[in-house]
């Protein structure tokens, strides 16, 4: 029996690991009171950028969304883009045109030429929207959650459609940090579990024994108490929510020789170290995930 202990233990654990995950498990519905249609002005001026606090000046004003783009907002865009022929259904994908990147032939660079690229997958069980062949609709309960499973192309076109664009890293970072100090998180120097939605943060939307961490409604961490769960007000100095955790956010700036697109903010799936303002992630522009979303900026 002793000899069988370790093999049996391993077998039991592996078998239990094969259990199915209910991706449609009910989600708690909370109204945060934060309006995702709100934009805030970021005035021109200097701020401290990056981990090493380099002084950087952005010499123009811009506006940025107070929250990530929600599933409801993006579904409205998908239906509008479909009727405007900006979005085409190609098998199990929604695709749209992108004029292409400048290709420098750098090591590991993927050539992104002019053509149609995926905006959203249509049959991914982790998506929070449905498509019946003619119309897109929100899966009930997920209306005010951040839009996920959207590629960089899909995020970019959403912003362009509403006369905006994806933020550059510096624009995003300034909006997250403000201009007063070198804080690592949008709300300050330290992070508590009820500051943001991150891996194993014990929020009402996660079940680490089953489906793991899920998104929270935009603006959820605003100091309100939801049922018996109390949040801390975690807005950035400019009043932005979810600039740390919940979903990674696509950035608009391109690095020469890098076909990847940059991501900021950390997500529900990462430890708190990735929620620090300067932390970078990246992925190819056609990548989509239940942990990646975006917000837009626009000229005032």
């Amino acid at each position: 029996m002793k000899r069988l202990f370790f093999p049996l233990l391993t077998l039991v654990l592996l078998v239990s690991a094969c259990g199915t995950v209910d991706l449609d498990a009910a989600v708690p519905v909370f109204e945060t009171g934060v309006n995702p249609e709100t934009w805030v002005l970021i005035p021109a001026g200097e701020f401290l950028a990056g981990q090493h606090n380099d002084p950087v000046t952005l010499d123009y004003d811009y506006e940025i969304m107070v929250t990530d783009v929600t599933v409801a907002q993006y579904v409205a865009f998908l239906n509008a883009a479909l009727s405007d022929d900006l979005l085409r259904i190609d098998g199990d994908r929604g695709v749209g045109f992108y004029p292409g990147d400048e290709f420098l032939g750098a090591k590991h660079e993927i050539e992104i030429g002019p053509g149609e690229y995926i905006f959203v997958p249509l049959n991914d069980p982790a998506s929070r929207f449905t498509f019946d062949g003619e119309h897109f609709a929100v899966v009930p309960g997920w209306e005010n959650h951040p839009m996920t499973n959207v590629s960089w192309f899909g995020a970019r076109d959403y912003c362009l459609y509403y006369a905006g664009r994806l933020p550059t890293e510096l624009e995003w970072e300034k909006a997250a940090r403000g201009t007063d100090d070198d804080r690592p998180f949008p709300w300050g120097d330290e992070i508590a579990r009820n500051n943001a939605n991150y891996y194993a943060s014990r929020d009402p939307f996660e079940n680490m024994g089953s489906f793991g961490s899920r998104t929270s409604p935009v603006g959820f961490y605003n100091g309100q108490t939801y049922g018996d769960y109390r949040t801390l007000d975690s807005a950035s100095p400019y009043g932005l929510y979810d600039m740390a955790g919940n979903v990674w956010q696509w950035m608009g700036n391109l690095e020469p020789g890098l076909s990847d697109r940059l991501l900021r903010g950390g997500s529900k799936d990462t430890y708190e170290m990735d929620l620090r303002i300067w932390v970078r992630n990246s992925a190819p522009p056609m990548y989509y995930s239940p942990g990646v979303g975006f917000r837009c900026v626009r000229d005032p």
Partner: protein
Amino acid sequence: MQFIKERLSYLFKSTKGLILVAIAMIAMETALFGMLSGPMAEYGVRDVVVRALGMDLVQAEREGRIIILYHSIAMAVVAIETYMITGLLKMKEFYKIAVRALITVGYLMAMLFGMGFAYWGHNWALHGLYIAGLTLVFFAGVLLTIALWPWQKEYAQPDPAYSRTRKGLDVERTAFFATALTTILSALFGAIPGSFFGNGFEVFLAENVIRLPEKTTMQYSIIGHLHIMLALIAIMLTLILGRWLDFKGLLHKIAMPLIILGTIVLNLGVWGVTTSLQPIAHMIIYVGATPAMLGALMLVIFTWDKLIRQGVAEIEKPTGWQKFKALLRDPLRFGPMWQMVFMNFTTSGLGIFMAVRLDEIFRLWPAREERIELTGHWHVLSAIVATIILLYYGDMIGLKGRLRQWYGWAIIILSNIAFGAVTVFEMKRLFISEATQQPLVNNLMLLIDFGLGMLLVVLALVMIWRLLDLFKKKGRWTHELEQDDLSEEVQ
């Protein structure tokens, strides 16, 4: 007073005492600081430890803390290898004493003052002492290299069973020398950029810049440094194992030149990343790694063959099963070689697979996924090196009978469970989606924590046993005090 004097004499003057101190220091550091990340942080243990010990963890300084943590553990591992080398190979007594004194003071300073600086506020005097510790370790390395100089008559190899030149040059000693020399040169590839970046203010972790299309020479230097230092620690350990297990014969004669060639070419490739050779540096590294790994494979074949032969010596016509049992009868001598083989499944093979399919698979994933592979890859490699040291240490302290079996097999099985689970965790995106991965992740984490946690428990039991032994008048330590020359225990 005599009581303390005798114990200190054992702990800081004898080969086995010095190794015991270094293992104990690593064990304590691993146990303590391992509670600050991963699942222990999830369970809230980190917060308790930070509060209880009054640690001062500034978010922006995490990368710097980790770099000092890695260095402090690495210095202790290098010290252990140095004690083993000075105990196994002939050298002048002056060098032996000087090298041991320097490296002991050096690694202890680096560990104590470095961790003090990194985790308990920034007292720059501690940082200075940390750097002084690293410098002493470096100087010990220089002296060791001089001590290993193989072209002296007294170090010639008279026995034709071992690898040697026609003039009698000991090729194995030359391999030790080449590895020591390239180690101190490669240390500079970390030290120079470390100084350049300025007091550690602009630190970075290599896994976080991996996708930058343009890296600076200093960044390349650091990436090269961390790769080659770990590789050299592994190569030096291979040579140490060879000496312990009395590696000789035809395979020895082939393996030693291969290891020398591999070590030199490997280093040239890694150093090349900072030069115009950068575009082909990886190719040079593969060319160097291949003979070095072939040399290690020959040691594995030699050792396992020897174990089988010794195990069936009394049997006239042994069956395959009897040979297999003979191979497994002593986990402390079977284990190090098995760990080396296992390392090729979990780290080397994985690394090569990643390199070959980088653009087709791994670069289609987010950078954070790639980071998981990279950090998992070298954490496992480091931990395997540690388990091999522990297996040799078990033999060194004379574990016998059932205790030897339990200790050896516990290290092998527990570590293999953990490292196997890490490997599956690293590669999970190949077969499971983000949305459905959680149950698998939970179970893999359980296996990893179980394996590593129990391994630390085993280590803790050994350390407590050794601690209690120190209180005995005629404890095991009194015998070990007399056993300074490890070459007399070569098997």
